[in-house]
């Protein structure tokens, strides 16, 4: 299991589009991926769960992954958050 703590810095918070980006990224990996805000754990593969966390700028999140590809998925989600959800050209 891999865990990383991040703070969201994008002004608009995690609204529909960034949520979708995170879900898409998580879906690429077979492992279980969750976002934890306070005492609520949300499935990062479900758009409704991610939206339901009501993540605003300044929110502290823990990204937790367990299973195959756990390192990669956490790494790439953290990068996405640090880049403030700006589309990367990879």
């Amino acid at each position, binding site marked *: 299991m891999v865990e990383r703590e991040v703070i969201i810095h994008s002004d608009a918070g995690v609204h529909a589009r960034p949520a979708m980006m995170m879900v898409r990224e998580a879906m690429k990996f077979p492992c279980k991926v969750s976002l934890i805000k306070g005492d609520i754990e949300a499935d990062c*593969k479900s758009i*409704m769960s991610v939206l339901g966390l*009501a993540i605003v700028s300044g929110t502290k999140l823990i990204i937790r992954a367990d299973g195959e590809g756990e390192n990669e998925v956490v790494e790439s989600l953290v990068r996405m958050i640090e880049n403030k959800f700006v589309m990367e050209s990879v």
Partner: protein
Amino acid sequence: MGKKIRISEFLKNTGRVDLELRLITGKGGLVREIESVDINRPGLTLAGFYDFFAYDRIQIFGLGEAAYMRQLPPHEKKRVYEKFFSYDVLCCIFTHNEEPDQLFIELAESKNVPVLVTTRSTTRFVSIFTHLIDEVFSPSVTLHGTLVAVYGIGILILGKSGVGKSECALELIERGHRLVADDMVEIKKVDETLLMGSGSPILKHHMEIRGLGIINVRDIFGIGSVRNRKRIELVVLLEEWDSSKEYDRLGMEEMMYNILDLEVPFLTIPVRPGRNIPIIMETAALNQRLKKMGVFSARELDDKIQDWIRSEKITNG
């Protein structure tokens, strides 16, 4: 317990219940946090007995306290109030619409202690307040699943993402059942026997259906297709059919699922193309209702068979 809630937050979320409160002073103090479900009647404290003064609870001033305060001579009043507010009092609520005097209000304001007045009687207010605060402080957990009310039974559908929880719920809604929450279900143990499930306030009655995106169930199917909360009486796990796994064929034993230390009847339903899960779900709900009434189909059939075997033995032997 460790849980806390701001007074302002609590007052905002009383739901359908109106505590009939109005704020007299100490608005800034509304950010203070309630840490206990208990209240305090400060009668003894005002009379000078400061041992066991639970200043960190909500202070309820009833008719008795108000009358006592009124008959105090002015110099005495000042001493009593100053002593009272020398403690870090959380919040004062006066019942029966009894507004405190100016001196009390001034002191409360200077110490930033919220003072509220309710038109309700003390007993009534305390009973409603306790009920509400109990709910705030009751243990809760958020699970990834879908909660639907089927024939009056609250079914919590669990399963991995993509197994078809939302699609199943959608078909149930289409068949006239009700959606409580999709994807994120907040469950509260309201009392020792009752688990109440509701959705997140911002997601309210929205669902994500692969290929369609996000839909608003209430707008599409109408108000009759949703409800805000429902007691959870059955947990159903949807999982992809695993041919190596033994599924329950008899239903003689009731399996249980543990949520917040409460046992809820539990079924595992294997999903396979061509299996009509919503109909199985409806049947499960009806069967659960039968069980609640004390009728266990599997056991009854077994009893009948055993009776028949016995009678056969007699006629043959």
